[in-house]
């Protein structure tokens, strides 16, 4: 493992017109897998695309493998693999044709047929890009990012919209990349993905990193004290709170999803269920849970839906 960080972002600011997409972001990614987690519009893609050399910082500095992605782009590009959020392929190109083409742009590419097979694309090699399913298009873009044997790959939402099997295949590939010493920076909405894959997670919101650490570090604290249930949205959380012991809190995290934090014991459970009974609520999926990254994420980034 290298000692110098693979990506170093210092005080990055990027504006589009009057809108500030990234606002003084600081991020250091070491070798391994780093997940960049955040709600829509948090600045994930802008940050990644600045690292890929597509955007020039308005202020701050970005270094990727020690290089400036804009000024030293020619040196950097062969060493980095890129998977865009969507597109990137001629609509009339066949899947294997496009992958073979990207392979030809590199000095020591992977075996194209083996990679296609590996990602479940073996049967659609002759299919033109526009006729591939969304999941196949995603996996082709992933294959294009790794075929050149890069040191570092940027994957922008690599499993968005994939079915569970395809998601597993993608995860397996990311794990293999890591084992073989390739560093991976990926953005995701899926907490489970970050927990499964990442050595390090950076949570971005409103253009800043608001928390960073291993999944375990981020999940630490309060684990055994959480009770969750789902019911109809808009329950009177204040009334529930009155029924609970004084040191408890209760909240509706997302519409219909409730969390009680406090001293979780049989009495508390009984209190919650009898309150539900009084209010005609069926507490579905009632559980006492491990504190997950999703909780951390929602706590950090707030509860309201964003566009």
């Amino acid at each position, binding site marked *: 493992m290298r000692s110098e960080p693979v990506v170093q972002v210092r005080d990055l600011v990027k504006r589009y017109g009057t809108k500030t997409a990234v606002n003084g972001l600081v991020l250091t990614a070491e070798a391994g897998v780093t997940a960049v987690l955040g709600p829509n519009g948090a600045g994930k893609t802008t940050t990644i695309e600045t690292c890929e*050399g597509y955007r020039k910082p308005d202020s701050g500095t970005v270094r990727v493998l020690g290089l400036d992605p804009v000024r030293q782009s020619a040196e950097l590009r*062969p*060493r980095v693999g890129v998977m*865009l959020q969507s597109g990137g392929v001629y609509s009339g190109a066949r899947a294997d044709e496009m992958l073979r*083409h990207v392979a030809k742009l590199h*000095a*020591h590419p992977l075996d194209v047929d083996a990679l296609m097979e590996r990602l*479940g694309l073996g049967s659609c090699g002759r299919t033109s890009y526009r006729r591939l399913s969304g999941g196949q298009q995603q996996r082709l873009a992933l294959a294009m990012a790794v075929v050149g*044997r890069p040191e570092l790959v940027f994957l922008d939402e690599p499993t968005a919209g994939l079915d569970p099997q395809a998601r597993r295949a993608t995860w397996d590939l990311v794990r293999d990349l890591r084992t073989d010493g*390739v560093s991976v920076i990926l953005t995701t909405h899926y907490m489970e993905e970050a927990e499964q894959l990442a050595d390090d997670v950076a949570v971005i919101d409103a253009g800043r990193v608001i928390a960073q650490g291993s999944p375990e570090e981020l999940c630490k604290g309060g684990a055994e004290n959480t009770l969750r249930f789902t019911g109809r949205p808009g329950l009177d959380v204040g009334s529930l709170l009155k029924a609970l012991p004084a040191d408890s809190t209760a909240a509706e995290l997302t519409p219909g999803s409730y969390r009680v934090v406090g001293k979780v014991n049989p009495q508390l459970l009984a209190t919650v269920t009898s309150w539900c009974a009084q209010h005609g609520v069926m507490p579905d999926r009632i559980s006492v849970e491990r504190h997950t990254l999703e909780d951390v994420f929602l706590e950090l980034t707030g509860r309201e839906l964003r566009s």
Partner: protein
Amino acid sequence: MTTATGTGVHVPEPGAAPLPRMIAAQAALETRMLLRNGEQLLLTVVIPTLLLVLFSSVDIVDTGKGKSVDFLAPGILALAVMSTAFTGQAIATGFERRYGVLKRLAASPLPRWALMAAKTASVLVTEALQVILLTMSAFALGWSPHGNPLAVLLLLILGTAAFSGLGLLMAGTLKAEATLAGANLVFLLLLVGGGVIVPLDKFGGARHTLDLLPISALSGGLRDVLQHGAAMPWGDLGILAVWAVVALGAAGKFFRWE
């Protein structure tokens, strides 16, 4: 789906392929994309050939003294250049930009100038195929060309440069749909008003303005050489050179990659 673990296949070994190999691969891919696209073939092959055959065999337009194929063949060659370098390239590049192809390639080891070189090579290969096909068709229709092949080559190259500049300017600044509509409209207007099949003197006083269009300079220049055996048509070459410099300069300045 198979999963191999710890195979070591992904151990980094990065590196760009040699430049000539990258450019050749890119040019080959671009050419295949073009030849595979039905609408593009209609524009670059079917329409020029049909117009040549139709207007040479049926007396629809008064093409002046001599065989009509001698008047038409140079115009159709100019049309072929415009269809590939301008219309075809604008539409293809516009959609490549829209679908993130240009963006993805910009992250590959292929430098941008090499991508443009490959696009140019692909345009030239297509034009060579068009010229061969149209020349053979014209000969079959009784064409008897004159003139200096070097002057013809120079006109075709400057015409290609001017139309490529205009096509890329359009593709790099407008939305893909606007480029599609605009490039076809311009193709149609210049087909009629650019001396391709209709002699420009039919347009009366407007002809002096129309003469300054790149299509008129190209069709007029080719006709001067191939039909009338003129030496270097410096005036038309000059007009094409100005268009080429202005259009390529503007494309270089305003082209947006995504």
